[in-house]
């Protein structure tokens, strides 16, 4: 299950989509809009998320397939919001479902780490002076992805 959407989502509803009594363990990662994001220490009042939707969907499908096969997941759901989002709003949700918790937890972290550096979304900060500021990719995110090198190849 992969969704790219302007709309907010409900965690209980999304859980029900992947829930089954063959699973015993679910790991969720939820990313939200933080108020103190700006690298230049300016206050922000929200973010704007741009997306190359056809490409992002195909990239998310690849990441999901890898996670399902490497960690023997029963399900993996990925939702990513686009457009204008206020402070505190949900941006991204990953849910992995497995019989065993170690698999669910590790796969969930792999999916969000991959999404951060490999999927066609771009963030802008909406500043209090009504300007938009491009968010730059964090070196940390690239470094973090290296940890998966041995697992996925």
């Amino acid at each position, binding site marked *: 299950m992969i969704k790219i959407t302007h709309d907010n989502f409900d965690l209980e509803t999304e859980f029900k989509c992947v829930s089954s009594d063959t699973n015993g363990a679910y790991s969720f990662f939820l990313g939200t809009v933080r108020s103190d994001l700006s690298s230049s220490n300016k206050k922000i009042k929200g973010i704007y998320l741009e997306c*190359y939707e056809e490409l992002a969907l195909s990239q998310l499908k690849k990441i999901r397939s890898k996670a399902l096969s490497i960690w023997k997941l029963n399900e993996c759901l990925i939702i990513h919001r686009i457009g204008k989002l206020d402070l505190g709003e949900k941006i*991204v949700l990953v849910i992995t479902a497995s019989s065993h918790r170690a698999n669910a937890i590790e796969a969930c972290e792999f999916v*969000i780490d991959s999404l951060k550096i*490999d999927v*066609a979304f*771009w*963030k802008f900060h909406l500043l209090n002076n009504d300007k938009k500021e*491009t968010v*730059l*990719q964090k070196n940390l995110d690239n470094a973090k992805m290296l940890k998966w090198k041995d697992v996925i190849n």
Partner: protein
Amino acid sequence: MNITLKYFSWIRVKLKKSHDLIELNQTISFKELKNNLISKDPVFQEIFNDKSVKYFLNLTEINDDNQTLNNGDILALLPPVTGG
């Protein structure tokens, strides 16, 4: 033949548009297209000099400047992604 260019993030902001339709008389390579674009608008020089920009042709990353572009192709210019 026609090639669609798609621009994202700071590239879109700098060019003040999200896409272009390029009309050409004949098949060209990605390298030739780049020179063609620079000659029309020097801002492209800055974009193509940025090693962090990636190029996707019909949803697949291009890693070869000699790749041939065909009628109906969609070429996207992508800065490093920042989703999640």
